[in-house]
């Protein structure tokens, strides 16, 4: 009886090993099969291709059947500045553990290290891309996962790079724990539905750390966007939730922590905006709830244009920003309620933690410099301070209805 069980187990194991053995190809620089293209060509669908350490001078490796390609100790694929490296057109492909360098560059073709076109259910994981034009490029794909990859730019030359992770016409992608540095946009989305983007670090890119265009639904959270040319831009998109991200050190004339342009019905919650020229810039943005964020040490905490309406700012900490809120019109269609403002000079006689007089976050001076940027030189002068105080007591030029009725006396603890 016992012997029988052992027999069955052994037979089972044997069959299992035999099968994986059959469906496995090993590529190595000095082996019988020494090119990845060759291995891909001879592989049956479902084969596991293992690539041994070494350098492979290859490009335009077309994958048109479901395969798993796994690099051992990051074998280097060097494209020698020609074309794409991987072009994936089949479903269920996995590319894992490669080091990739030197794709082609072009003004008309978006050469990428890993291009996935019209495919579903793929995994691109743990790859290191350096010196590439575009990094990972998803076009007309569904349900793919891009995880733990590292993408670095060609060089620091202005505007010469493509995007790190580029998504065009994609449904339900997951972009997780990647690191992108020095590209044009770190992560770029155009016509993407329901993206889940989290755990990524996108730093020092020439344009935006993350860039949404015409991409509805989904969310991005727990990401870091640091020292990008212009911060993060979310444009022409609806229902995008943005939570617990860090937007910091985005300095420059056209730089923002977060730029919102034509955005509707979204949630911005639990983020930290630290040392940006403008923390949140909003144009044509409606029904967005900005809740429980820390907005600290920015030039302008919030710049909200008058074509933005029914947005709500609640429970945020506004800490030591040069200007709290800037707007371009005496009209106001947005709500500020229960925030903490470090510049609030009111009092709390009934000691309920809420200031007894409203706080007006738009200073007269911020209205003046909208029209006359040169006057910024007068910031922190006595004269401006007097003007601002007078305006706060009796508003003439600043929006009369833009105030926080219940400003918190103490910084809100998280």
């Amino acid at each position, binding site marked *: 009886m016992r012997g029988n069980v052992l027999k069955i187990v052994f037979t089972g194991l044997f069959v299992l090993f035999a099968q994986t053995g059959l469906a496995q190809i090993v590529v190595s620089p000095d082996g019988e099969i020494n090119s990845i293209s060759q291995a891909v060509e001879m592989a049956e669908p479902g084969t596991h291709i293992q690539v041994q350490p070494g350098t492979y001078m290859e490009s335009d490796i077309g994958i048109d059947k479901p395969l798993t390609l796994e690099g051992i100790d990051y074998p280097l694929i060097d494209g020698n500045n020609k074309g794409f490296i991987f072009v994936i057109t089949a479903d269920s492909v996995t590319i894992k553990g490669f080091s990739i360098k030197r794709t082609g560059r072009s*003004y*008309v073709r*978006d050469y990428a290290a890993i291009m996935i076109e019209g495919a579903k259910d793929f995994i691109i994981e743990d790859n290191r891309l350096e010196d590439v034009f575009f990094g990972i490029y998803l076009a007309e794909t569904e349900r793919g996962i891009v995880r733990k990859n590292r993408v670095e730019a060609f060089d620091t030359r*202005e*505007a010469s790079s493509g995007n790190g992770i580029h998504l065009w016409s994609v449904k339900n992608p997951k972009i997780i724990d990647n690191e992108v540095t020095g590209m*044009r946009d770190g992560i770029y989305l*155009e016509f993407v539905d329901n993206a889940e983007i989290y755990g990524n670090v996108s730093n020092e890119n*020439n*344009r*935006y750390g993350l860039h949404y*265009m*015409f991409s509805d639904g989904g969310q991005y959270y727990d990401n870091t966007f640091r020292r990008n*040319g*212009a911060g993060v*831009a979310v*444009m*022409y998109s609806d229902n995008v939730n943005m939570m617990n991200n860090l937007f910091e050190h985005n300095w*420059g*004339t*056209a730089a923002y922590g977060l*730029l919102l*342009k*034509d955005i509707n019905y979204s949630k911005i919650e639990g983020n930290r905006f630290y040392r940006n020229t403008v923390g949140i810039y909003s*144009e*044509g943005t409606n029904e967005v709830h900005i809740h429980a964020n820390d907005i600290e040490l920015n030039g302008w905490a919030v710049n909200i244009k008058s*074509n933005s309406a029914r947005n709500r700012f609640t429970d945020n900490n506004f800490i030591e920003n040069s200007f709290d809120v800037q707007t371009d019109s005496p009209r106001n269609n947005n709500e500020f309620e229960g925030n903490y403002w470090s510049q609030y000079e009111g009092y709390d006689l009934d000691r309920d933690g809420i200031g007894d007089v409203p706080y007006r976050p738009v200073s007269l001076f911020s209205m003046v410099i909208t029209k006359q940027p040169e006057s910024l030189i007068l910031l922190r002068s006595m004269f401006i301070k007097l003007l601002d105080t007078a305006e706060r007591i009796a508003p003439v030029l600043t929006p009369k209805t833009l105030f926080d009725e219940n400003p918190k006396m103490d910084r809100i603890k998280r």
Partner: protein
Amino acid sequence: MRGGSILMLIIVSAAVLMGCEPKPQPINYGSDECAYCRMMITDAEFGSQIVNKQGRSYKFDSVECMAAYDLTEESENFHSKWVPNFLNREEWLMAENAVYLHSETLRSPMGLFLSAYKDRDSAEKMKEEYGGDIVDYETVKQIVEREWLSNGSGSRPMLNN
């Protein structure tokens, strides 16, 4: 004599000032912002501009954004409109004189697939390689009007005013 030289000075300076024809300004790629869509301008083969009569330049990241601005803003004070030659990015072309290729294989920054050329011959050559249609600036404006500005075409409205 003295009056004469003052008169002379006035005439000369008037002539010099009249000679200051408004002309295209250099675009700072990687820091200037598009006056229409607010995106940072990064691609020299698409960056365009409208110069007004005072010589101030409104810069755009793409031909389509310039056309949209042209369609939606007061154009009375516009002096001239400029687009880059796709094949020679240093060269500015007058928008009305340029020839455009509208080809889905040549992606432009705001996704309307428009690139500009100096003459019909070079546009024809690009068309042979990339397909699409050769159009003039009026048609470019119609494309932008249809895709972005008029509602009910299936695409989303771009204006929020």
